[in-house]
């Protein structure tokens, strides 16, 4: 959903697993929708980990644990690997997450998050390990994600890191603009390129 992004201060939901793939984020059988209803995808975020095969709630999964909540998902490295399905980003946004923190993201999924105004924040493995530790000790641990200053802070330890994002995308996120707006404005340049390429 197009929304302006500034500073997010929130508790976190920890998912300390590596290589969480987009089939887990949203299984293929939920990809049959023909509209972009984020609430539908949000309800099925991590579907097969949230629910047991008989449909009952899997109490052991972190989204079902009342100790944890917030707008920030913290995940192990290589988050979002596998399928290009943007439904995974819709599910994350639809559930209410605005930030995903990990030490490493898969390429396509990272773009998909950005295109849905969810901010992927890449931190060092040490920062990530300490953050998991802080959340484990105190589920109320607050993290501040400051997009204007590209800074992420673990309020429990005071640890801070800067994170990368290109200036163009940062501007888009802060002003709720998307790439299609930009490309439509630049169609003359595309036409000029086509003419030059044919020559």
């Amino acid at each position: 959903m197009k929304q302006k992004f500034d500073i997010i201060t929130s508790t976190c939901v920890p998912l300390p697993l590596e290589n969480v793939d987009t089939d887990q984020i949203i299984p293929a059988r939920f990809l049959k929708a023909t509209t972009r209803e984020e609430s539908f995808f949000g309800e099925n975020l991590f579907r097969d980990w949230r629910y047991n095969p008989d449909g009952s709630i899997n109490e052991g999964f972190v989204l079902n644990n009342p100790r944890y909540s917030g707008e920030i998902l913290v995940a192990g490295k290589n988050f979002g690997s596998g399928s290009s399905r943007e439904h995974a980003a819709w599910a994350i946004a639809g559930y209410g997450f605005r930030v995903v923190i990990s030490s490493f993201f898969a390429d396509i999924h990272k773009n998909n998050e950005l295109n849905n105004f969810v901010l992927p924040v890449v931190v060092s493995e040490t920062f990530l390990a300490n953050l998991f530790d802080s959340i484990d000790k105190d589920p109320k641990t607050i993290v501040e994600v400051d997009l204007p200053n590209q800074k992420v802070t673990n309020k429990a330890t005071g640890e801070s890191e800067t994170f990368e994002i290109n200036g163009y995308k940062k501007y888009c996120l802060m002003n709720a603009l998307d790439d299609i707006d930009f490309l439509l404005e630049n169609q003359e340049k595309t036409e000029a390129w086509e003419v030059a390429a044919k020559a």
Partner: protein
Amino acid sequence: MANTLFDKIWDSHVVQHVEDGPEQLYIDRLYCHEVTSPQAFEGMRKRGIKCFRPGNIFCMPDHNTPTHDQDKPIGDPVSKTQVDTLARNAEEFGLAHFGMMNPKNGIIHVVGPERGLSLPGMTIVCGDSHTSTHGAMGAVAFGIGTSEVEMVLASQCILQQKPKSMRINIEGKLGKDVTAKDVALYLMSKLTTSGATGYFVEYAGEAVRNLSMEGRLTLCNLSIEMGARGGFIAPDEVTFEYIKGREYAPEGEAWDKAIKYWETLKSGDDAVFDKELTFRAEDIEPFVTYGTNPGMGIGITQSIPELDSIPEAGKASFIKSLDYMGFKPGQKLLGTPVDYVFLGACTNGRIEDFRAFASIAKGRRKADNVTAWLVPGSWMVYDQIKKEGLDQVLEEAGFEIRQPGCSACLAMNDDKIPAGKLSVSTSNRNFEGRQGPGARTVLASPLVAAAAAVTGVITDPRTL
């Protein structure tokens, strides 16, 4: 230094460099399937715009299509809606559409190359991570999200950060029964599923050069499973020979002109890659996966790693993975009973894959404990199977050929592996639940799949 083939193709498609941002990249070919496109078309309607270059866009359903009775309406109403929506969108926006039962229909990544739609030097995208397949033609091809599909529908461009370049050389000759699939599974086991993230991979070396076009398609298909955005192979005589005469390939003067250009598509001798890796073909044996990502693979005669050998941060995922699969650290997979065998997908659903499978099935019988689904990647493959009489060979061995589609690779149609069952699959992903909720997947080549299908257990095809 813009002297890698990747640089040449990418840079020649840059419309502009966005200030402090990505590049605006021109796209020669967009493919749309029914799953990742409806929201993009919906976005176009909301904006009230038309496709910028409709002639560059080809649509076909593949993920939801049933693999039997395609002449009848799809039973699952939700699947039917999605497939019908693609047909309607293609018509509304004036795009080519190869619907179900159209002889040109099949899995997009099988159809594009076999129809001559994917050509050397092109930029090719699709809302599907296995778009990397088309890189085998000597193209820069990669998967994108639905917002990006909308960008291309609207402007024939996307905004994209240029990836880094990597060259992977496979030197030497592949051994008996070692296929492109085994090479890819071997590479993933070495690089992990994130080892090539941020890179575009050029495959090179003697073993790669010696691959057939179809083997190359299999290898490039799996690039994404190492995290790479795409993988490609410089076009050569094998490529040109494959393309010539295909339906949408250039002809006559246009062909001569194309060849002249295509022959220039190679990395310079002095090309510098951000990363370069070399492996020996002799070190690769038929491969199988044991875990729940494609990087968790071993040579078929090897044992699953011990827990001690796994880095601390990865232990929880490793244990979860083996629990799901019902395997133990240190265990060998040879001799493990198999419930299902799946031959097909954009990875291994081409004619050579069916020839390989049939070469083992010939004169043998399908094991009674195995349910086998043999799904051609397209109607063209299906027709070729009949033409060569492979269907007869397979039927005599107790197998039947189904109708084309993605099928049990991701189980969006009825072809779901039941919970708890073990499947030896020629597809590309062994993620939890990928082939159906609770399904357990071992990825392998068509030869290993055939060996499992006739013996009922995981078997080294070299011993048959």
